[in-house]
């Protein structure tokens, strides 16, 4: 029924935003299966709570983070499995012309601590303001801003070692 009709607002919204939601879910779970499950659970939760046809993006990022934390608590033995599969996940589209640059940048993002990485991802690829990041991560806006700056500093250090900058 929906295949022949115009895409709904929800479908258009998902087409536009699902990749960045999945990127954040991947960065939070380090396991592709968990990332997809967490994203589904988070979106379902936000859909049910939203009064508008689509929820605000920072709600979804916040829900992804909470679901990922819940899942990590549920499964203590997941660590070994995560470590085996973490390197298999590509967070970003392979760029043919800048494949090496992209690989180095992705590696530098992955090397960040989780608290810095999540702010960087929400800012650069999530497109959130510091206030929205603060709301999604339940931290003060100033902390979000300072973590973003620290993340960039760490990235620069890491990239200088690789002579990219």
């Amino acid at each position, binding site marked *: 029924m929906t295949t022949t009709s115009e895409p709904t607002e929800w479908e258009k919204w998902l087409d536009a935003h699902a990749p960045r939601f*999945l990127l954040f879910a991947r960065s939070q779970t380090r396991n592709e299966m968990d990332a*997809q499950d967490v*994203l589904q659970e988070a979106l379902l939760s936000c859909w049910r709570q939203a009064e508008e046809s689509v929820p605000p993006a920072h709600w979804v990022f916040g829900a992804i983070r909470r679901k990922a934390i819940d899942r990590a608590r549920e499964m203590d033995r997941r660590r070994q499995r995560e470590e085996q599969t973490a390197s298999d996940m590509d967070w970003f589209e392979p760029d043919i012309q800048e494949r090496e640059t992209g690989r180095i940048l992705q590696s530098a993002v992955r090397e960040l601590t989780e608290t810095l990485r999540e702010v960087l991802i929400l800012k650069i690829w999530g497109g959130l303001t510091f206030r929205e990041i603060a709301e999604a991560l339940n931290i003060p806006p100033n902390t979000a801003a300072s973590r973003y700056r620290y993340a960039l500093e760490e990235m*620069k250090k890491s990239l200088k070692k690789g002579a990219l*900058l």
Partner: protein
Amino acid sequence: MKSEQEHVDFKELESELSRLKPNQTPPGLIQSLKSIEHQRRPQKSTATSGRDIAWIGWGAGIAAALTLLLIVAQKFPLQNIDPDNQANSESQSNTDMQSIASEPSESLKTQSIPVAIEELGVLDLRDGAPIQFIRMRTLDFSITEASDGEHIVRTQPHEQILPVRMNYY
């Protein structure tokens, strides 16, 4: 100068990072996510019934508090004044803490002195000021004048449970 240089460097780095595009969502996953739209959202009437449940909770709490007060009131009568002090007690209001001292008469002076005050609890009314219940134990002194001078007679201690409306929280 250094911060300006850092700002420029950060802009360059941000630009480099922005060029990376998040990987596309797998087709199976995106279809599954789109089907979420067909999930039923909780109706607003459900939220209303949730508020109703909250009101039932409030009502049950208030009923329990009132029951407790009734039990306390039965166990500790509001007035336990000895008959000798009947006239004085009739002039007092149980709800008025300021009318404890009685007017002296020509032949008899009486005075009530609180010796112990115990806070029993606060009934926090949803609409209106809270009411605090206190148990006050008092001694009544009677002073009689006779030809050989004044005689002071002390009554047995007696207690009252007084409701006091609180004007502040």
